[in-house]
């Protein structure tokens, strides 16, 4: 399928943007994307943002982002699907384009976490799990991942330290990316000595929450031949929220279905895809994602990563700009950031992060510990 063209890309660094508000971040990334798509003015602005509500930030964010970008008389929507917000925003934009309601849509993902203290951010994030039965009983995404990680170790009989290789892959790629938050290689020793968050889950198993934004201008498929990157597949699937199901089954059914549907639309199999941007909000989620997308059999994601299978230059290059784990976890911005990174790969503009000869990319964004999955295939 040819759902849309990506005709403009903008990204801020992932990190601590003390001088920027949430709206500022939208304007910085959105403005850069508009500059790239010069000569075309979008008539809709869709913003994905996860925590702005809980953290008391600007509401009706897409309205304010559009207005500060000088875009008046446009359709604006703000999508809040937890960590999948960015992917969902792209998805809503595609629907507006495919419905023939707009010719050009600006999509922004943005998150501002550093205005709040870390324990408050973790509590805010926990509201994306069951707010009453999980968040209300002390379970956040890190505790949830820890419970699943313990099960993964027991069930698949793997060494706990093998999770290192997923983090190390992300760090190795982030070390090449000037916009990354944790832009350095991760020594195995540092991983092993990392402070415990929820045994067996350590600080180095989690992706660092930070500020950031990314934007793309999407256009209805042009009739003329065009060098623009195409969105060739798109699928959003939600099912079965809950830490219990995740940890008991050790699978991500929404991610599996969403990836399969998006690949099928694009006429591709996972083995045909050049680049994988996955939702590695923790090493545990990275492992389950790698398996859900079909890059390794159940229980074998860690081995695959340890063999270098996910490295740039490896069999299935993934997290090529550092992933959430080392580029930085920009929450609601993540999905748009991934799309921008995938598109840069296909343009051949990924610089030191370039995957040689990249022709297609699978980009998957997850919310509520994988219960919501949004996958796009670029070609």
């Amino acid at each position: 399928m040819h759902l849309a063209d990506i005709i403009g890309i903008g990204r801020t660094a992932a990190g601590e943007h003390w001088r920027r508000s949430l709206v500022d971040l939208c304007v910085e990334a959105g403005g850069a994307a508009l500059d790239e798509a010069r000569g075309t003015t979008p008539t809709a602005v869709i913003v994905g943002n996860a925590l702005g509500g809980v953290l008391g930030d600007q509401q009706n964010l897409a309205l304010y982002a559009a207005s500060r970008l000088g875009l008046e008389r446009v359709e604006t929507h703000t999508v809040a699907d937890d960590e999948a917000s960015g992917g969902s925003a792209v998805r809503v934009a595609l629907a507006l384009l495919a419905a023939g309601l707009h010719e050009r849509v600006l999509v922004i993902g943005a998150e501002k976490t550093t205005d709040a203290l870390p324990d408050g951010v973790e509590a805010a994030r926990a509201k994306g799990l069951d707010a009453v039965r999980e968040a209300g009983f002390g379970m956040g995404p890190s505790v949830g991942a820890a419970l699943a990680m313990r099960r993964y170790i027991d069930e698949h009989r793997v060494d706990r330290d093998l999770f290192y290789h997923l983090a190390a892959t992300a760090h190795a790629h982030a070390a090449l990316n000037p916009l990354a938050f944790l832009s350095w290689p991760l020594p195995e020793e540092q991983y092993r000595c990392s402070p415990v968050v929820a045994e067996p889950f350590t600080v180095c198993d989690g992706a660092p929450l930070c500020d950031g934004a990314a934007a793309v201008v999407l256009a209805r498929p042009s009739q003329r031949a065009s060098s623009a990157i195409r969105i060739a597949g798109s699928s959003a699937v939600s099912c079965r929220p809950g830490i219990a199901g995740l940890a008991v089954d050790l699978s991500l059914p929404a991610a599996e279905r969403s990836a399969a549907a998006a690949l099928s639309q694009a006429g591709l199999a996972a083995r045909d895809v050049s680049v994988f941007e996955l939702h590695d909000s923790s090493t545990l989620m990275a492992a389950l994602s790698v398996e859900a997308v079909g890059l390794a059999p159940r229980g074998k994601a860690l081995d695959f990563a340890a063999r270098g299978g996910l490295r740039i230059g490896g069999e299935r290059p993934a997290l090529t700009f550092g992933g959430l784990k080392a580029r930085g976890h920009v929450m609601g911005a993540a999905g748009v950031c991934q799309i921008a990174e995938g598109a840069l790969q296909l343009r051949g503009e990924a610089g030191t992060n370039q995957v040689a000869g990249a022709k297609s990319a699978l980009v998957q964004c997850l919310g509520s510990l994988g219960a919501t999955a949004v996958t796009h295939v670029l070609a």
Partner: protein
Amino acid sequence: MDIARSWRQQDSNLRLVGSRCRVCEALVFPQRLRCPSCGGADLADHAFQGGGTTVSVATVREAPRGFAGQVPYAAALVRLDEGPVVAAMLADVEPEEACPGMRVSMITRRIRQDGDDGPIVYGYKFAPEGSP
């Protein structure tokens, strides 16, 4: 602001009240307005017995806001004897001694405080069976 919320949850929190579907007999925790198995809306309250087995355990050392005073604590998934799996903290056990496969039963403890001057919320935790 959380007083209304706590009040609404007290049956579930204090007596493990969930729902039983009058159509397909499915048991679910916590209470539901629609049966997750058959979609029916004819549900009765059902108090679970409180016995169960841990499925997974994690020792929490960095807690979200509202729970910091309790670290370290063991978070667990408990499969109730009637079927549903509940996410809850363990009590009356050293966190490092908690492990999957332990028999536990429900007890009532202080769960969290919403803000420094917010209401204290009581609810279920699980303790090893036979602990005092």
